């Protein structure tokens, strides 16, 4: 199983972002996803910057994938998307069907991102026909459904499966910016408040229960999805790549724990124990078991 560093979902300063990828070049991950998937107003890194980072990461032995914006609203969004597709040097993760169309027209292989809503083998086969070589299931897909997807006779040959295995779950996208709304600002004049919240803004119930995370137009879980303790199941189900979603602090340590786990140097229980101490929230794993996403079973009741 390979390890992937998912696209950075938050908005960090240019210095922090560059330093993060500089460091990531030396981390034991196989694949690095680059690019802005959440908000077109986030401009501290442009496509040229990402292409420069991509070259450095490739030189460091990483596979690089450029991720497209999930919600396309304007002609300038499309212009940015076309530029990204046109470069053509790196694999692209398509996060909506307009990107799929453009990539297929350009005869480029691509990764089918988690927001393409692939819930059945017919849709996956269609994507394979259009050039997808890897797919990321919706983050809500349970183990049993994924197993059925991969076991079905018409699972496209050679199609890799990448699972969201660690991090705050990206749950929803809106035209509205909830971070700007929190500061009583309009999106068009958001003053880039996301920069002040490198792990997002926690939304709590009125009883003080951490529930969701506001990240601009994206809403995430407050809890951290962690499937480290399910490694054996991930393997037997047929997961080829495990996606780790970036957090502001301790990401290198997160990567190292997963590397040690995959290499058999530490047991799932030890990995879980170590991750519990460095994750910026409480864990969850409910989606994998077909329950509410926020639920957590952890090491108990492991078959």
């Amino acid at each position, binding site marked *: 199983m390979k390890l992937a560093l998912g696209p950075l979902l938050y908005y960090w300063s240019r210095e922090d972002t560059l330093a993060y990828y500089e460091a990531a070049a030396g981390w034991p991950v196989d694949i690095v996803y680059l690019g802005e998937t959440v908000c077109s107003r986030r401009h501290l890194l442009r496509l040229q910057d990402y292409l420069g980072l991509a070259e450095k990461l490739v030189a460091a032995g990483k596979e690089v994938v450029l991720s497209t914006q999930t919600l396309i609203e304007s002609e300038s969004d499309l212009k940015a998307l076309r530029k990204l597709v046109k470069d053509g040097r790196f694999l692209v993760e398509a996060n909506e*069907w307009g990107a799929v169309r453009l990539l297929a027209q350009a005869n480029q292989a691509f990764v089918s991102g988690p927001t393409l809503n692939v*819930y*059945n083998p*017919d849709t996956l086969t269609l994507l394979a026909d259009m050039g997808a070589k890897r797919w990321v299931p919706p983050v809500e897909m349970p183990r049993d*459904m994924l197993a059925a997807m991969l076991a079905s006779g018409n699972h496209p040959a050679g199609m890799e499966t990448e699972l969201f295995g660690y991090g705050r779950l990206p749950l929803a996208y809106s035209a509205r910016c909830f971070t700007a*709304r929190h500061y009583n600002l309009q999106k068009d004049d958001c003053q880039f408040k996301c920069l002040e919240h490198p792990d997002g803004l926690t939304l709590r119930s009125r009883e003080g*229960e951490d529930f969701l995370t506001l990240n601009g137009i994206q809403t995430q879980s407050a809890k951290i999805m962690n499937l480290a303790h399910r490694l054996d199941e991930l393997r037997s189900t047929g997961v080829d790549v495990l996606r780790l979603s970036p957090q502001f602090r301790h990401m290198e340590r997160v990567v190292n724990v997963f590397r040690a786990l995959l290499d058999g140097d530490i047991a799932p229980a030890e990995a879980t124990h170590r991750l519990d101490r460095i994750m910026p929230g409480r864990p969850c794993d409910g989606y994998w078991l077909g329950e509410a996403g926020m639920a957590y079973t952890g090491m108990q009741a492991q078959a």
Partner: protein
Amino acid sequence: MKPLLELICPAGSLPALKAAVDHGADGVYLGLKDNTNARNFSGLNFDARTLAEGIRYAHAKGAKVLMALNTYPQPATLARWHAAVDTAATSGVDAIILADPGLMAYARKTHPNLRLHLSVQGSATSYEAVNFYRERFGIQRAVLPRVLSLAQVENVVQHTDVEIELFGFGGLCVMVEGRCLLSSYACGDSPNTFGACSPGHAVRWEQTPKGMETRLNGVLIDRYADNEKAGYPTLCKGRFEVQGETYYALEEPTSLNSMELLPEMARLGIAAIKIEGRQRSPAYAAQVTKVWRAAIDAVKRSAETFKPNPAWMAELNKVSEGSMHTLGAYYRPWK
């Protein structure tokens, strides 16, 4: 010639269908009694008998019937969605409304003459996405998610042959439809696979010393003072706390009402206006259809002088969630 401002109304039941048709709907949309559509609520929707009667009734009065099969088929139960497409084709509906590309491929292959609409649950917000479904499956109409401003809608219309349908009135999703997993995160059932958001079985209402509390699978969605009217705990419309401030952090309990934009929608060539609310009563279907029929007729008579009649707006506010309405994303500052 493309249609202009067809009025498409919700039919959650046979009585609601008849009410909408009787009050001037150009078309109604409905679903079957299972998770093949995004209003999978007990007591709603159609079986073989009511579907046949509904189609007969609507067609006799010149109205179209559209069937929503707009959830995402899953491997273990794929046959259910295929059977639903077959049912739609043989029953004589005028179009089916789909979200899943795999299901579109099935419909296209099995029933090449069946008209396909792209559901709002397909999350297509650009003409590149809309044209993908056009090229691959020959869709004839797309319902756009409630995220674009009117200028952005115009850009889509100008770059596609596909008819564009917009939401006019009803419950408002603040998230991109089809791209929202908040419900499954909180309670396990998502609109994409289960066909419902914040489903009734996960809801608890409880009168406490602090006020009426509404919960979704245990999570406190809102708490109401004695002088406040408690609303259904749709989880994006609760009051939450962010950095010490308690407010409607995502969206107020409000309804979309885009009536004042009808002249602009006519100018853009919008093919149809959709009214949300299959979960609502036949009385709602009658009332909302009647008002929107009058408004669309007035716009078609004279778009330049059109103004929403205050009496219409008062009627609509009576049936709005929270008795409030908004222009939503059509009006840029809402974002």
